């Protein structure tokens, strides 16, 4: 929403710097995205170089067919000679003149120049050069012939600042300059002018019937139609064009400009139809028929949906209600009779149609937020005044089709409650005044009647508290809640952090990959019915493919020491309404199975989980607690574990063991076994027979070759015997070792290698 400051000041007389005003609005009303300075720069006396001039003489340039040489009185006594390229004026015309040295709106500095031998001591300006409108065909001829030498800024809005607001969806009333003015009045305790058009309302000059039928009252709670005859469609006066341009709209013709102007002033979008082009001269508000089509103002042929609300004539749709008019019934230069629509449309209908059609307009943007139905008449009044004045029209007929309009909400306010919730003592008198300036009626008993333009938004005491609080946000102190609460991480959260830290310590870097994938190895994985893209179609049940893909991309780029991990959720059908979500950790690392397993072993070690690894189906896959370790086809090592399962297997408090008092006996032993026998099985069997005095048995070498024969391997173990109660003698160690040797021989045919 663009709010030109000059326009704003028409409704509320304030005298504050625009930066200060913007800061105040930003805090209490709506975000100010930026301040745009438009037109002639008001700096270093620049404005003083723009004057009203009167053309004294004008004649063809002796050396140039397309130029005029003029003598222009700019209030200096002696007229100046100015060369000009336009021909739409003659002696006597009042024109806008910039003198040499003036900085033009584009930033260019005007110099005294000689054009084909004729000196030009200034420039006669067009509206586009002043950023007051689009017209560049001729120069701007001023109405009412102001005195030569009058500062041009007194006659035209030369310089303006425009606030660009980003309003919130609950405040359609702020999509109007008058609505913003009301807030500014409340901010500064300033007087708000009565709504525009209401000072001297025009009276109707006829009693023509306006034929409007509203078939769909839900979609269109109100329809004010006004008929105008003898309309002279033409271009708008400079002040109107200037305002529209400043507000970001393009001037088109006086009638259309008036509808846009009123929309921007009051917030109620309007539409003007050429009555001649309405079949049967009538208006029917209804839903679109199946397959009905309409060519809209932008030239697009649109296929309508039976849920779309349309404005139709006797035969066909002539506008998509609240969104865009049709090309056929548009007001044109030839139009003489106009039907003005000041209606009210139901927000959801407009929102849905706008979404279906992919068409958002200044009108739909307002309707979808809920425009005050009481506003229609006010808007019609202002538009009538302007159409009559600017297009010389006669207002000859009116209809106001409406049901019961909503009552104004009534809310009780406890001023002390407002102060309590805000945490700042706000005097009840201040609360009352603020609300009243915003248009609320506050009774002696603090019964608050909400104005119609806030009726959708303010329906409870909390909403009133916001109305009071938002004007004092800077004054609210910074405090902390008084209660001392106690918080800590849960066991699962601490586990997650520990896993993150251990893996980082192992050289793994954390990756974040998408939960949504193109496909998943599990046939049960949940598919989105309407994914955003095909590669985000399935909720994954495993992390490894995504992390592996990230690892491969890194290898392709040429990054070294690739080791990635991710902790994220996976999703499985649960049988219930929502899937079950589990937190997994997955890692992918260069260096194959052994590196991946090493990381998992370090992780288990850090978590004090005693885990086993078992061969699973497929090459180089091991199952372990809560997941698996594997080698991928391209020799990347990978693992994935369910953190929930690890949590369940974590030991409680660790108990002290005496590993110091009595010395350990360390030996290396090697066994020759068949290839198929896993080292882990040997260790398990050894533990079983040797008991707790076998403190550690770790395979450190596997040998295959001539010395052990075909189909065999030799596995060397570092073995540690230790007791917590006594020193193990050489004989004790020998006895334990013999038990292991004979058990492995009996079970696996293992032969001790010397």
């Amino acid at each position, binding site marked *: 929403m663009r709010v030109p400051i000059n326009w704003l000041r028409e409704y509320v007389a304030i005298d504050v710097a625009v930066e200060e005003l913007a800061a105040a609005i930003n805090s209490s009303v709506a975000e100010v995205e930026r301040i745009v300075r438009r037109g002639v720069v008001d700096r270093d006396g620049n404005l003083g170089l723009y004057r009203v001039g009167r053309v004294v003489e004008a004649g063809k340039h002796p050396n140039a067919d397309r130029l005029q040489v003029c003598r222009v009185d700019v209030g200096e006594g002696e007229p100046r000679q100015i060369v000009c390229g336009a021909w739409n004026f003659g002696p006597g015309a009042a024109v806008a003149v910039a003198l040499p040295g003036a900085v033009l709106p584009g930033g260019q500095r005007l110099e005294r120049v000689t054009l084909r031998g004729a000196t030009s001591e200034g420039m006669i300006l067009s509206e586009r050069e002043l950023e007051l409108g689009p017209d560049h065909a001729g120069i701007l001829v001023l109405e009412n012939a102001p005195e030569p030498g009058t500062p041009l800024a007194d006659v035209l809005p030369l310089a303006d600042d425009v606030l660009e607001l980003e309003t*919130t969806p609950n405040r359609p009333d702020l999509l109007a300059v008058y609505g913003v003015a009301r807030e500014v009045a409340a901010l500064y305790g300033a007087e708000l002018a009565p709504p525009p058009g209401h000072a001297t309302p025009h009276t109707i000059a006829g009693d023509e019937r306006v034929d409007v039928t509203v078939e769909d009252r839900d979609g269109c709670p109100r329809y004010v139609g006004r008929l105008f005859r003898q309309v002279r469609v033409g271009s708008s006066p400079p002040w109107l064009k200037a305002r529209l341009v400043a507000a970001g709209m393009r001037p088109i013709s006086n009638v259309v400009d008036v509808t846009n102007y009123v929309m921007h002033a009051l917030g109620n979008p309007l539409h003007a139809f050429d009555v001649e082009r309405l079949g049967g001269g009538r208006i029917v508000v209804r839903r679109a028929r199946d397959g009905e089509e309409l060519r809209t103002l932008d030239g697009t042929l649109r296929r309508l949906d039976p849920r779309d609300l349309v404005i139709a004539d006797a035969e066909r749709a002539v506008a998509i209600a609240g969104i865009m008019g049709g090309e056929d019934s548009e007001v044109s230069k030839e139009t003489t009779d106009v039907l003005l629509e000041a209606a009210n449309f139901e927000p959801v209908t407009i929102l849905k149609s706008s979404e279906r059609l992919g068409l958002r307009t200044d009108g739909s943007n307002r309707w979808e937020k809920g425009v005050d139905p009481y506003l229609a008449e006010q808007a019609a009044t202002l538009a009538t005044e302007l159409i009559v004045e600017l297009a010389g029209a006669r207002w000859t007929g009116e209809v106001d089709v409406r049901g019961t309009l909503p009552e104004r909400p009534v809310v009780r306010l406890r001023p002390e409650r407002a102060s309590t919730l805000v945490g700042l003592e706000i005097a009840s008198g201040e609360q009352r005044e603020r609300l009243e300036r915003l248009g609320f009626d506050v009774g002696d008993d603090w019964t608050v009647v909400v104005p119609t333009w806030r009726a959708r938004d303010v329906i409870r005491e909390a909403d009133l508290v916001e109305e009071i609080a938002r004007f004092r946000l800077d004054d609210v102190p910074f405090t902390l809640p008084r209660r001392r609460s106690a918080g800590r991480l849960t066991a699962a959260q601490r586990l997650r952090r520990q896993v993150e830290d251990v893996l980082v*310590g192992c050289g793994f870097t954390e990756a*974040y990959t998408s939960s949504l994938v193109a496909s998943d190895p599990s046939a049960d994985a949940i598919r989105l019915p309407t994914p955003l893209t095909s590669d985000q179609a399935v909720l994954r049940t495993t992390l490894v493919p995504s992390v592996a893909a990230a690892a491969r991309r*890194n290898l392709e780029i040429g990054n070294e020491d690739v080791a990635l991990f991710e902790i994220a959720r996976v999703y499985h059908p649960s049988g219930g309404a929502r899937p079950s979500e589990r937190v997994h950790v997955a890692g992918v690392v260069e260096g194959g199975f052994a590196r991946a397993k090493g990381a998992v072993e370090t992780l288990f070690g850090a978590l004090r989980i005693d885990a086993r690894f078992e061969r699973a189906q497929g090459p180089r896959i091991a199952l372990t607690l809560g997941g698996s370790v594997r080698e991928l086809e391209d020799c990347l090592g990978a693992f994935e574990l369910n953190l929930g399962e690890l949590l369940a297997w974590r030991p409680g408090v660790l108990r002290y063991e005496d590993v110091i008092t009595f010395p350990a006996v360390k030996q290396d032993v090697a066994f020759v076994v068949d290839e198929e026998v896993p080292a882990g099985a040997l260790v398990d069997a050894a533990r079983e027979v040797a008991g707790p005095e076998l403190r550690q048995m770790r395979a450190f070498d596997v040998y295959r070759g001539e010395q052990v024969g075909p189909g065999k391997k030799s596995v060397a173990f570092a073995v540690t015997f230790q007791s917590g109660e006594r020193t193990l003698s050489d004989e004790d160690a020998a006895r334990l070792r013999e038990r292991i040797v004979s058990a492995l021989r009996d079970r696996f045919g293992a032969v001790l290698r010397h």
Partner: protein
Amino acid sequence: MDRVAAVDVEALEREALDAITGAADLRELDEARVRFLGRKSELKTALRNIRDRETGMTLNALRDRLEAGVEERRRELEAAERERAAAGDTFDVTLPGQAIPRGHLHLITQIRREVEDVFLGLGYEVVDGDEVEDTWHLFDALNMPPQHITRSPLHTLYLNGDVVLRTETSASQIRVMESRPPPVYVVSPGRVYRRDTADATHSSMFHQIEGLAVDRGITLADLKGTLLHVARALFGEEREARFSTDFFPFTEPSVGMAISCFRCDGSGCPTCKQTGWIELLGSGLVDPNVLANVGYDPEEVSGFAFGLGLERAAMLRHGVPDIRMFLENDLRFLRQF
């Protein structure tokens, strides 16, 4: 009695001490130690064969003297070594040490932990909410009317008519409040999903952390104080906070928080779009409808809630130009942090 069990104590001591004190470096010293005190040395052999107490005392005393001599010479040699190094020989301390590989936490994890820790310090709990939510917890209970724009399949990823990928972590608020009576002091971090086409500032998946405090007497001032504390923890102790009116269905009043720019300290720069202020997050007092929806009495308790985008915080603080970098997992990027 100089001669003990065939060992000439004096001669042995003289010979050994000569070798020890004459050792020119640590290697020679160690050779001498092995020769005179090692397992196979004359002295050790004699010690193993001791028959009488007196001989034992003599030989043990000799061993002690020799060991003391070795220690003394070792200290002298080490001191000399250090002196030489200090005097500037060729030992290059600027060469890199032995590499010990280290991984990196993702920047978003680092920020998540920072925020969690700030709130743990304030006595909050951390709650992990589910990413797949039903429309009651994500929308209805949060006071979003049926026609609210976020509920449209144009904005939200639906699994079916009632089940969606959460668009905000706010649903965690509802789950926590449903599960226990007030007071509630929690933060809830996690992934959220939007039907947004990816560009420099949009991603269909990103991370938020939601905060909620509900208790007797919670005020807008408490919200301001708490969020200022967080902002300073994340962006520096000199930060100031500015609050402005905003709108969210689940808070009333709703306020946005901006912090004073940490790049330019308020004088204006591209980071703050020349305003001196940076919008950081949305927040507000919990809407009474939300409290009523979970069975809390809005007359008894009040609360505040906020939602902080972790990617946004990371991008602001570290100057990361494009949100998509957080999901690209390029190690060159990840290893910067």
